[in-house]
């Protein structure tokens, strides 16, 4: 018996859900960022699984590009986080609600 496609997809769904919950629950900005990365990885797994089972290379190419984008996003995002930290001395995302002054 070999692992079915649906197993991989289910794993991916679980990881994505955990990441979504983490984004909403965590109050530290960096933890929230890491949960977003987790969600991206879950999607990567889905792509690779489909690419493997259907013998199509475009899935993996997509994963390649997703990773690149994730790297760029990490760089810029962390830069923003540092900038916010410099102004507020706090990494609590609830403190960044300037709209509700």
């Amino acid at each position: 018996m070999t692992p079915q496609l649906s197993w991989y997809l289910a794993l991916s769904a679980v990881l994505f859900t955990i990441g979504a919950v983490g984004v909403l629950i965590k109050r530290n900005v960096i933890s929230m960022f890491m949960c977003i990365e987790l969600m991206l990885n879950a999607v990567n797994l889905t792509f690779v699984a489909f690419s493997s089972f259907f013998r199509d290379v475009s899935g993996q190419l997509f994963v390649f590009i997703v990773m690149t984008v994730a790297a760029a996003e990490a760089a810029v995002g962390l830069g923003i986080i540092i900038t916010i930290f410099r102004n507020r001395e706090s990494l609590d995302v609830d403190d960044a609600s300037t709209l509700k002054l």
Partner: protein
Amino acid sequence: MLVLLFIVFAGLAVGCAVSMVAQRNPLYGAISLIGVFISLACLYVTLAAPFIAAVQVIVYAGAIMVLVVFVIMLLNVEEEERLPLRLRSLIPIAVGLAAILFAEAAFIIFFVQASPATPTRNISDAGLTASIGAGLFTTYLLPFEITSILLLMAIVGAIALARRGGLLPQDAVVVPGAQVLARDVLDPLAPPEAPPIVAHTTTEVERQLGLEDVRHLVDDE
């Protein structure tokens, strides 16, 4: 055999993911996330995608997470407090939404599985480096080039963000956890060198600005 491998690595991934969400210290969370990445890389290998597995370890675990750990060390992030002070109602909402999302995914997965077009074996040679390279530089050349420009933009943006001197003047007093706002943002008539406002709540700001008797329309929180 493959099933066993799958179960091991899948369990590892899920365990590390749960650990990452549950950890209060972000450094431990980062370590857990690295664990997730490694187990995902192993899963890619079982899916006959060795190139992607290698790139995952190099880029994600090796570059992005290192960057995150650097930032954590730089900002000297402390442990999160135990109970959330605000928006306590968000936790059950989050769990609910996640449950709905999982239910929808299960629904789709069921149909995918039941479809006769879904093969069961996954031995493919689509994951070899040669095929990836072939696809990347022929069919998907345009996305490749655009991605490189995207990276250029990220570099420029990171440098621009890091170079800025901040919104606060040199002699500003910064209170941890408080909102610090430039005075000329709040009050257009104030001179730009006026000291910034430091406050935790709206009422404190009003008191400092001398607007105490301004009536509010709705006041709940």
